[in-house]
């Protein structure tokens, strides 16, 4: 009836029953069960629901206990559960254990996660960085140079390029001319931002010449100005070749203070003629004496303290009040050097006194 016999066993059973017809019928010996006729009374009770439905019983007790921890029970279910536990004190332990399954974070020290925060990006143009770095490097180099170099005063040498072909032409023309010919040389004297034009009249026979300062010219057409203060020879041309000038008659003179200062009084000609000087040699000698070989006005050169002060001022300009350079010395000996490029960025060196 359960269908668990093999085919061979079933054939053998059939043969046995056929051979023994007096045996009671199989249905009488093994009555069948009609499953449909007897319903299982606890079908609904076996069903599960979350949260549970109805009232607690032994089968669903854990469901109700867990639902209580989760807060899913209704008020009626809560009261029903309490009544059940009172009626069945043996389940008190289970109820207590389920309540202990609640996870708490007590005693857990949480570290700080402030480093996970982000900041607004600050865009610094690349050229600014390069400029700042270059400025700092330059200032640092200047500081080291000025501090570590010797005590020799600074001597600056300036070389002026002159239009020598014009001078040569003038000399040649002077050679070719008669001794009665006077020459004038126009000299642009540049001083500061202004330019003065000096006309030098050269007389034959080595007579002293006269400087004439003409009226200021139009600024637009005035000669170029330069930062440095050195004279330039612009041109040399003959004047009044047929009428030589009388050395006793003064030429109209309107010499400003600047022009006077440019040519020191009593200056001796540095040009020594080999024999009798020609007009051209005189012109050349005068130009060389009063212009090219003129000594610069006396001025005191920058010292080490000036260099350090300049670097300090520049660093403060770039890096703020926290930047700067300080140099302490005892006599000619440097005892302390402090270079600060900003907060936390500095170089300090000291030497025993």
């Amino acid at each position: 009836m359960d269908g668990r016999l093999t085919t061979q066993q079933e054939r053998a059973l059939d043969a046995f029953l056929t051979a023994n017809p007096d045996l009671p019928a199989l249905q009488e010996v093994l009555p069948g069960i009609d499953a449909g006729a007897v319903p299982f009374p606890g079908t609904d009770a076996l069903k599960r629901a979350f949260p549970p439905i109805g009232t607690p019983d032994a089968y669903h007790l854990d469901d109700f206990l867990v639902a209580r921890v989760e807060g899913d029970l209704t008020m009626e279910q809560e009261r029903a559960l309490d009544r059940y536990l009172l009626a069945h004190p043996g389940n008190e332990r289970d109820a207590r254990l389920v309540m202990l399954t609640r996870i708490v974070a007590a005693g857990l020290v949480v570290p700080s996660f402030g480093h996970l925060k982000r900041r607004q990006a600050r865009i610094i143009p690349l050229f600014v960085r390069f400029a700042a770095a270059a400025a700092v490097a330059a200032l640092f180099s200047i500081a080291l140079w000025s501090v570590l170099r010797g005590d020799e005063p600074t001597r600056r040498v300036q070389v002026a390029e002159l239009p020598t072909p014009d001078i040569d032409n003038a000399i040649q023309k002077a050679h070719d001319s008669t001794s009665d010919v006077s020459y004038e040389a126009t000299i642009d004297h540049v001083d500061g931002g202004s330019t003065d034009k000096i006309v030098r009249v050269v007389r034959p026979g080595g007579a002293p010449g006269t400087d004439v300062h003409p009226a200021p010219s139009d600024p637009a057409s005035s000669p170029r100005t330069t930062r440095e203060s050195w004279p330039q020879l612009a041109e040399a041309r003959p004047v009044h070749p047929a009428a030589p000038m009388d050395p006793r008659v003064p030429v109209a003179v309107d010499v400003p203070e600047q022009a006077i200062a440019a040519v020191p009084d009593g200056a001796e000609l540095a040009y020594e003629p080999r024999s009798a000087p020609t007009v051209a040699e005189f012109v050349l000698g005068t130009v060389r004496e009063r212009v090219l070989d003129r000594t610069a006005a006396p001025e005191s050169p920058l010292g080490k303290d000036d260099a350090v002060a300049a670097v300090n001022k520049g660093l403060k300009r770039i890096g703020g009040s926290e930047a700067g350079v300080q140099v302490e010395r005892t006599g000619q000996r440097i005892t302390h050097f402090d270079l600060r490029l900003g907060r936390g960025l500095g170089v300090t060196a000291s030497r025993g006194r």
Partner: protein
Amino acid sequence: MTLAEYNAAVDTHADGIYRFAWKHLRDRDGAKDIVQESFARLWVKVEDVDAAKVKSYLFTTAHHLIVDDVRKSARSTTLEDHHEPLRWTAQSPPDLQKVLEEGLARLPEVQRSVVLLRDLEGYSYEEVAELTGLNLTQVKVYIYRGRTALKDYIGKMELVL
């Protein structure tokens, strides 16, 4: 999500994720790594994540990271892990919190996650389902199974002690 909202999320949720991860892994360094990685992934998608859903995003990310970590560590379990109760019997009696943590560590990963999300962060069933990718019924069943398993473990430890 703006920068300010992101930083506010750090203040609001970093501790919760850390607790969640620490209870899961029982490893402080591992939990810190989970927190940092969660926020690192959030930062990558900070433009796309809605500020109102940042908590869900963070805990979902942390949950996935924890699952990956647990799976990796499961391949390299030590002999010590299997003798934890015996070690307790030889030493001083552990307190209930330690017993509970041990029981929690023995839960299947998905049960542990839903219980922790429920207890530590107070998530609703729906939120836990959203974070873990489970459906609502699965969440409830896993919570039930997790709690009954914890109850049985604690009860067993009580008898031993």
